[in-house]
């Protein structure tokens, strides 16, 4: 059997979540979350612990009964359907491979439940094992596998019965960093090949940015932003998203008469502020560059201050600068800096931010 066959040739289905809520007493684990997933799309639910991302995934799988709302898979309402009737594949956080079955029996289990004949089962098991690069592992016991191998077997078991959609609950959290990064790419490639609509959960923003077509950021049970990785990073909708994804510092900005000002000086911005009021300027450390002494060009904002420290972090140098009483960070790539300025604590430095790299978010009132 050819292993290049696409399992879901044109069978990818959409998932629609509408005003889904889950209340535990006064706690709202999910608060009116609405989310649409296109057929064949890879969506990652991202958020800190307690954000509701796992609750949402478990509700889609059928393990958590929501308080209200609708979940439709391929236009079918599944919110009251028991998990075994949802036809949804799932990779569990701890993989949940049955310890009393061999690798092959684990993968064949969903096929057995569907009454697939023995020979067909064996062929399918061999095919998905090859798909996850573990051909010939069928006879192994689960406890003879490494963490990464278990992860692949769990994936194989979840896709072997060609479920309508694939769910993954923190699929890579148990793996070490290097393996995790390799598996991110591998899972993404597998998804591209199978074309199955996939929803994964993670608290690791890099994983979300690497794997997903779109990322849904959740916070305290609410959907904060739902967008493609690049848009999410470059144009966060609010301060929470800006802080949660990537490194960030904020400077207070006042907007009046169509001009944004920081510490009384006008700023050059990519987008004109919508309305007058208090905003915050998002600064990503890697977007700041060391000023070279000449006056800033048009469209460049210069921030001058005293260097507090410069930390060597291997690939980069992390500078902490005090600007008008605010601490900001700049990440300089580790390469020859041309001896412009001595990077000693206490030195006076200037950092430049291009207008194209600027982003304002609404100022949040601290509780």
């Amino acid at each position, binding site marked *: 059997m050819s292993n290049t066959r696409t399992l879901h040739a044109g069978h990818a289905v959409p998932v629609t979540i509408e005003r889904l809520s889950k209340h535990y007493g006064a706690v709202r684990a999910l608060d009116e979350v609405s989310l649409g997933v296109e057929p064949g799309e890879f969506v990652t639910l991202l958020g800190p612990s307690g954000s509701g991302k796992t609750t949402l995934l478990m509700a889609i799988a059928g393990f958590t009964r929501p308080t209200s709302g609708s979940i439709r898979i391929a236009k079918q309402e599944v919110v009251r359907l028991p998990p075994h009737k949802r036809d949804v594949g799932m990779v*569990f956080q701890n993989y*949940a491979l*049955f*310890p*009393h079955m061999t690798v092959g029996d684990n993968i064949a289990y*969903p096929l057995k*439940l569907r009454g697939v004949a023995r020979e067909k089962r064996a062929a399918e098991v061999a095919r998905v094992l090859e798909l996850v690069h573990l051909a010939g592992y069928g006879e192994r*016991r*689960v406890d003879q596998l490494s963490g990464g191998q278990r992860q692949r077997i769990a994936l194989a078991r979840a896709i072997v019965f060609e479920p309508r959609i694939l769910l993954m609950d923190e699929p890579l959290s148990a793996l070490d960093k290097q393996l995790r990064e390799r598996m991110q790419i591998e899972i993404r490639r597998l998804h591209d090949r199978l074309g199955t609509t996939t929803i994964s959960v993670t608290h690791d923003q890099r994983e979300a940015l690497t794997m997903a077509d779109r990322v849904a950021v959740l916070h305290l049970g609410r959907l904060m932003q739902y967008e493609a990785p690049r848009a999410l990073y470059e144009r966060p909708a609010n301060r929470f998203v800006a802080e949660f994804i990537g490194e960030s510092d904020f400077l207070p900005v006042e907007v009046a008469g169509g001009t944004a000002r920081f510490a009384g000086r006008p700023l050059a911005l990519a987008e004109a502020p919508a309305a007058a009021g208090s905003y915050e300027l998002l600064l990503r450390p890697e977007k700041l560059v060391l000023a070279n002494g000449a006056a800033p060009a048009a469209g460049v904002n210069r921030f001058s201050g005293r260097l507090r420290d410069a930390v060597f972090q291997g690939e980069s140098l992390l500078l902490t600068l005090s600007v008008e009483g605010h601490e900001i960070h700049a990440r300089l790539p580790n390469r020859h800096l041309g001896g412009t300025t001595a990077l000693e604590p206490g030195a006076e430095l200037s950092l430049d931010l291009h207008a194209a790299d600027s982003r304002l978010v609404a100022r949040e009132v601290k509780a």
Partner: protein
Amino acid sequence: MSVTTIDLNAAGLARDERGERWLFLGLCSPALLVVLLLLCLPIGWIFWLSFVDGQGGLTAENYTRIWTEGAYVAIFATTFRIAALVTGICVLIGYPVAYCLSQLPTRLANILMLCVLVPFWTSLLVRTYAWLVLLQRKGLVNTALVDLGIVEKPVPLVHNLTGTVVGMVHIMLPFLVLPLYASMKTIDGSYLRAASNLGASPPRVFWQIFFPLSLPGLMAGLVLTFILCIGFYITPAVLGGGKVQMIAQRIENSVNLYPTWGPASALGVVLLVLTVLALWLSHWGIKRWRCRVGLA
């Protein structure tokens, strides 16, 4: 230079390690002493007595009597039959109990666990005599059965096999439920969710996933119950009323019947050997099974 580096503190560190080992041995010594004095020595002594005849000479007569006299073989058969019956009933009653407890929220499970544990903490004699009162001719059970018109006249519930089994099941149930519950608690709920996610209906999740994973705990409880049943004395003696004889009672009879300790000692030794054999067999069986299904 390198020599002194290697030897640096070596002697002192080695002394510390030896000292620690002696400390642990010292901590164990009271228990070791008790086991030696109250278990190993008496068993050795009984083993010796079983080979001694009335005149103080060596003999194997005490053992040959067990094989040749049919009564003994019958008693051993009865003992194993009752032990198997009681264990079987305990499994039928105890498994659902342990299952429910393991699936309930911990707080509720802990409260319900008390229902299993309170009888366990009550004296064995008290419970045995309580059953005697309940099951006798004019006891609560018979009165209720007659009053409800289920039976015409009181049925014999005690001083027979029924009474013995009822009493023993009651006493033995915690010994099955506790290890079973402990092992069921360790079955990760994600296995059950995974099976359900893969398309298994609730009965299938139970029989294909939960039950196989609970078997090690079930075997542990089963073996414990069975072995305790084999040597059980008080409850069968009181509720069996002499009509149902198990080995332990026969040993007591032998002590009274014969002028020497020999016959009773020989029975004791045979009981011990059979118990050890049963234990070993079950361990071997579990190990083989675990290897086969990959739980080792």
